[in-house]
């Protein structure tokens, strides 16, 4: 292995590390935030579909009930999130890493 190859392999390792570092410190938390935002959007969708879960009668719940078979995951995580969410403010607060 001559010098050029060793430099090349060193550069590759360095680049991989840097990318990993950047991903772990900067981009991954950002993706987490996006995912939380996506969950919030999903919650809004679920609430619009099934407001009667909170005692609010809805003209469409008869129709949105048709979606229930396809909403297993969503329904489960929706309930879970509703249970362990303190306040909406807290939830939104989690989405900011200072």
């Amino acid at each position: 292995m001559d010098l050029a190859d060793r430099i090349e392999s060193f550069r590759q390792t360095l680049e991989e590390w840097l990318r990993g570092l950047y991903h772990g410190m900067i981009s991954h938390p950002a993706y987490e935030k996006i995912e939380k935002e996506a969950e919030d959007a999903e919650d809004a969708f679920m609430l619009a579909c099934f407001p009667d879960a909170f005692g609010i009668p809805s003209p469409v719940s008869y129709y949105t009930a048709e979606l229930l078979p396809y909403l297993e995951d969503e329904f489960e995580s929706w309930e879970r999130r509703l249970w362990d969410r303190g306040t909406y403010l807290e939830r939104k607060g989690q989405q900011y890493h200072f």
Partner: protein
Amino acid sequence: MEPFVFFGGKGGVGKTTVSCAYGLKCARDGHRTLVVSTDPAHSVTDVFDQSFDDSPRSVEGIDGLDAMQIDPEDEVTRHLDEIRQNLSEQVSASMVNEINRQLEMAHGTPGAYESALFDRFVDVMRDADDYDRVVFDTAPSGSTLRLLGLPDLLEEWIDRLMYKRRTSIDLFEKAAVGNNEPRRVMDGDPVLRRLEERKAFFEFAGSALHDDAAFFLVLNPDELSLNETRRSIDDLREKGFAVRGLVANKLTPSPDPDENGRGARYLRERVETEEARLETIRSEFEPPLVAEIGWRSAEVKGDLLADVAAELDVETAVEPPTHV
């Protein structure tokens, strides 16, 4: 006239009689006709002396006339069972109970009956290829009017739901890092697909009701009925449907001029007040009075129905539907 004809009005004014009579008239004029009753009181059964269920069945003794009855309760149950079936195929056993609760709640809401009824009669309109004319005898209450306003309302709702769903899927797709599979994907999302199907359904319903349906109101010559009719006309117009004509039913017969007993005097007085009310209708109401049907002493069925049909001045010629 349009292929779909709706008869509405207050409870007990004789919508079923008039609808059946009109159906008979259409059939006699050579149009294949279906009479659909959305009244769970099963009065079509009484008029034709023959039982009907929720699939069209030909009326004995009358060529070209079929009838069916939609029971909203059955429809709600059917809808519920269908979803349950779907549920047990798709959802893991542990979640079924959880979701079942939600499902039952949705079907216990006050709007469920209306939605079920609406679904069914839109289905009937969609599969009406076999018939030249479909006559709807609507359920007696204000809910029928709300029913007709459903498509616009629901289309908007579905649009909003679809927007919300798309937003969240889009975010989930963006949140998927590197080679990770996103939690939800836009392509082939079954929820969006169902919503789109529903939207198409409401779009069809809206355009069929607006372009291919004619509305008639049945009323009796009394104050209550007049007031309700006035409100219904306004309601329908607000929703963009015009009432084509009014049918006055159960008019009191006038006694012979030489009769002067207590009964005759009573009848004469009634006829006078009724005549005054009819005059009000003629002068103040915009839709024309297309029929004045006298009170029958016997239940209207058989030959009597033909008599009533003869008194109906509603044309039967059919224009082809614009939405199929």
